[in-house]
């Protein structure tokens, strides 16, 4: 992997053509949720368990120095040598000295990400050590000179045929590509390395402060060998592995194997406290001696993270890999592309930024599409996409934005009139390109200007945006129950104005007076997602001004991302004395369309299943489901509108378009979209519905090409049509 100048787009193309990776990863990604669910069946209240882990780990990081001191004191009391290493160099130096004292040259290693992080094996070999990677996956990638591509399954990118070649070459005889035979051959072959090793090096899954104990979680049994046969045991672990008590380790153990591999416990869960006996041969006789035990606590910028109010959250990670297993991007490209030097996926991006620095992070962080899937499964409840966004903000603060983007943000995004007249101009300019109806392929519309759209069709900007139609559709009901201000968002305004009309009709139908403040502009998400909070604030002020004048009871949007952004204005402007209070009041009034209407239907006794409508399958927008927590309401509304609801496979899996990602990494985005298309097709439904204008644009684009007989609609459209039907046949 070229770490210096990575060309991620090229890497993606290569990986997508790599058959073993695609097959193995595909298989694992399919199977993982099933295994996990089965393992969770007898775990009790899983949410409570996640919460308990999060809390315990968060409490620990808040006093990490104290916990580390306790660990050191207790381990030392029991005869362990504890060393605190600032970085990899210090680790290597420590081990070299230790080995030098004993004349030790043969090392057997069990799996440890921390050793990968500091390239320990390479360093030791450079100093003439014989190092055996004894974990099967690690051994395979060591023979192949690769890096791990998954936390738990490091060689997942290789096929049995590739492994058989590697084994045959190493063992000097033909090893047939039969998996069981290969594993057993490796077992026999590696046995001598265990029996002859002077030093066993392991990681630790948990370090327990109250007794200075380490816990090792393995399946292959190699860590037990490495801590039983050699006369020296060296543990390398990061500070994040520390917990206060033995029962805290128990808490982690209830979750870690279930989340990692769907096992209730792995084959071996081992607790080691203090040096243990070892048998050595002295002058032809077996004698018992005491093994030397060394624990190296690795900092490598971890303590800095522990003291960062936001990033100390990474200490809640128990390295289970669940976040990778459910990540739609990781599931296609694997950890070599979506990953840095050691750590992969979304959490890998964060760890890479903290441990190796921003330049390594910047090469691949864009691959996180912010779908929030990982946050549903993470045992430590880490806000992975949120932390990535925070890192982007920090990167912009440090380095600023690229020149063109800066120009665009300053001159276009921060000025509504310029922005909107450009959108109108685009509508005219694009006419010959847009085939037929509103065919659109862009989610965060303004990115259209950023010159990244060259690989795909341009979005069809509607001839008449919603803002020009608002006056026609807005009709004040007789005795309105309240006043709703409609925030359309750019997409609904300029690409999907029909849906904008539906929203108004539905709100009026439940009795609201609707107003559409003409001064409104983009919510600011495309800008904040690039890390530019200053321009986002300018945009927020434009919207606040526009809405201040209409005095609404609620502010409604049919785009979950807009809702989130509008809801954040209060926080965004909290240090702005002039706008602070207005922003807070505004944010408090923001409501997401489908859940708001569901509430009204409920109150008015209209939330009844009815019939007469078409068959509909529902796609959960990532943000609507996982950030706003809305997923039952749209479904019930669809049924209340008389439609037959047909669930698709993975309804809440991302449709593959998220801002810059969908434009820059087209193949990948299209592959994710392709999976969605298949799932939609399989339901046989006439309509696919969602409650997010961004997803509508992406899915519509896919339907046009791949499933032309299925139509895409917003829940608002479905409701508006049923209202129409009812009016015609009362």
């Amino acid at each position: 992997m070229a770490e210096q100048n990575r060309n991620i787009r090229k890497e993606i193309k290569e990986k997508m053509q790599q058959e073993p990776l695609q097959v193995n990863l595909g298989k694992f990604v399919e199977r993982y949720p099933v295994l996990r669910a089965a393992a969770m069946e007898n775990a009790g209240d899983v949410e409570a368990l996640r919460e308990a882990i999060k809390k315990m780990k968060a409490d620990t990081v808040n006093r990490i120095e104290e916990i580390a001191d306790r660990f050191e004191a207790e381990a030392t009391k029991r005869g362990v040598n504890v060393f605190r290493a600032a970085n990899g160099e210090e680790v290597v130096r420590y081990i070299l000295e230790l080995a030098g004292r004993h004349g030790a040259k043969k090392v057997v290693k069990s799996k440890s990400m921390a050793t990968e992080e500091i390239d320990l094996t390479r360093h030791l070999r450079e100093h003439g050590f014989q190092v055996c990677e004894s974990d099967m996956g690690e051994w395979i990638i060591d023979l192949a000179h690769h890096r791990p591509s998954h936390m738990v399954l490091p060689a997942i990118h290789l096929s049995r045929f590739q492994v058989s070649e590697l084994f045959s070459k190493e063992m000097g005889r033909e090893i047939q590509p039969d998996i069981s035979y290969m594993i057993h051959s490796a077992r026999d072959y590696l046995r001598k390395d265990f029996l002859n090793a002077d030093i066993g090096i392991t990681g630790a899954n948990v370090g327990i402060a109250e007794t200075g104990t380490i816990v090792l979680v393995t399946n292959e049994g190699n860590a037990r060998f490495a801590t039983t046969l050699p006369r020296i045991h060296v543990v390398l672990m990061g500070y994040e592995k520390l917990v206060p008590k033995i029962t805290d380790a128990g808490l982690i153990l209830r979750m870690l194997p279930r989340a990692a591999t769907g096992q209730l416990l792995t084959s071996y869960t081992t607790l080691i406290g203090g040096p243990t006996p070892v048998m050595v041969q002295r002058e032809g006789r077996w004698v018992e001696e005491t093994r030397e035990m060394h624990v190296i606590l690795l900092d490598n910028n971890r303590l800095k993270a522990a003291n960062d109010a936001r990033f100390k959250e990474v200490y809640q990670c128990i390295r289970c890999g669940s976040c990778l297993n459910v990540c739609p991007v990781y599931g296609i490209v694997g950890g070599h592309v979506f990953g840095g030097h050691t750590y992969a996926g979304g959490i890998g991006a964060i760890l890479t930024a903290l441990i190796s620095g921003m330049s390594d992070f910047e090469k691949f962080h864009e691959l996180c599409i912010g779908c929030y899937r990982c946050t549903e499964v993470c045992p430590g409840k880490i806000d992975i996409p949120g932390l990535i966004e925070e890192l982007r903000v920090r990167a912009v603060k440090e380095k600023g934005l690229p020149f063109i983007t800066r120009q665009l943000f300053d001159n276009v995004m921060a000025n509504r009139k310029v922005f909107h007249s450009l959108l109108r101009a685009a509508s005219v300019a694009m006419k010959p390109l847009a085939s037929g109806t509103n065919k659109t392929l862009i989610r965060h519309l303004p990115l259209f200007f950023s010159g990244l759209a060259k690989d795909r069709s341009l979005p069809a900007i509607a001839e008449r945006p919603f803002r020009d139609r608002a006056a026609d559709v807005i009709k004040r009901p007789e005795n309105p129950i309240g006043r709703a201000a409609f925030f359309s968002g750019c997409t609904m305004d300029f690409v999907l104005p029909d849906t904008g009309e539906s929203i108004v009709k539905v709100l009026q139908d439940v009795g609201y007076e609707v107003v559409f403040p003409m001064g409104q502009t983009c919510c600011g998400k495309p800008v904040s997602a690039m890390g530019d909070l200053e321009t986002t604030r300018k945009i927020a002020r434009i919207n606040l001004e526009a809405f201040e004048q209409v005095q609404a009871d609620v502010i409604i949007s049919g785009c979950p991302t807009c809702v989130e952004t509008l809801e954040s204005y209060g926080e965004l402007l909290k240090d702005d004395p002039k706008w602070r209070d207005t922003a807070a009041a505004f944010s408090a009034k923001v409501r997401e369309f489908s859940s708001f209407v569901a509430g009204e239907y409920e109150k008015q006794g209209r939330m009844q299943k009815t019939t007469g409508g078409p068959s509909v399958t529902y796609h959960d927008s990532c943000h609507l489901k996982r950030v706003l927590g809305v997923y039952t309401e749209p479904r019930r509304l669809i049924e209340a509108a008389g439609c037959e609801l047909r669930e698709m496979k993975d309804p809440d899996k991302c449709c593959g378009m998220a801002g810059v990602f969908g434009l820059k990494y087209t193949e990948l985005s299209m592959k994710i979209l392709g999976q969605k298309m298949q799932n939609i097709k399989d339901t046989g439904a006439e309509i696919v519905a969602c409650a997010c204008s961004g997803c509508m644009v992406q899915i519509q684009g896919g339907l046009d090409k791949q499933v032309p007989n299925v139509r895409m609609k917003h829940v608002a459209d479905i409701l508006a049509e049923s209202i129409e039907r009812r009016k015609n046949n009362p």
Partner: protein
Amino acid sequence: MKKTSNDWRSHFAPGGYGVHLFPEFEKRAKDAATEVFRVKTPQEGADVVLELARSAGARKVVSVTSPLQQAAGIEAACKAAGIEFYGDRDSIAEHAPTADIGISGVEFGIAESGSVCQDVYAIESRLVSTLPPIHIVFLDSNLIVAGISDAFEIIAKVFDRGYVTLITGPSRTADIEVVLTIGVHGPIRLVVIAVDEKP
């Protein structure tokens, strides 16, 4: 023999364990590819060992002792069947790498996960339970706790220093093509002989 604790039993929560949890333990253990034999008396346990040794063609056994194994008379039974038997520390160190079967005792079982908890502070215990391809353990079928948390409650009380392993099935990997394969570095078979009657 060196142990992490010589008194595990007095740390079980009253009412927190029992043979009523055995069926759950047995199911979960079998799900994890453990072979489970439930017997009434220790002597029946010895018969199971001999039968296993016979069917596996085992010639050499290394064994650390536990009250159940002693009651079963494993050593005498093996020797009578013509199987080499090594039970003291030095001979275990010498023969464990080439033995066909390792035999040891465990402290308790965990119903939630089908695991057994083994105190392996003594080096000979670890050699017996790691090196031979078949590992047979004797378990008192009354000593089953419900959950992983219960297990850690007990461990928290007894563990000061030492070496304890929760074993759940034979060693395994899915490192090649995500295909589950049993028998990597550790034992290829794990056999639990659960004895109902106290010796």
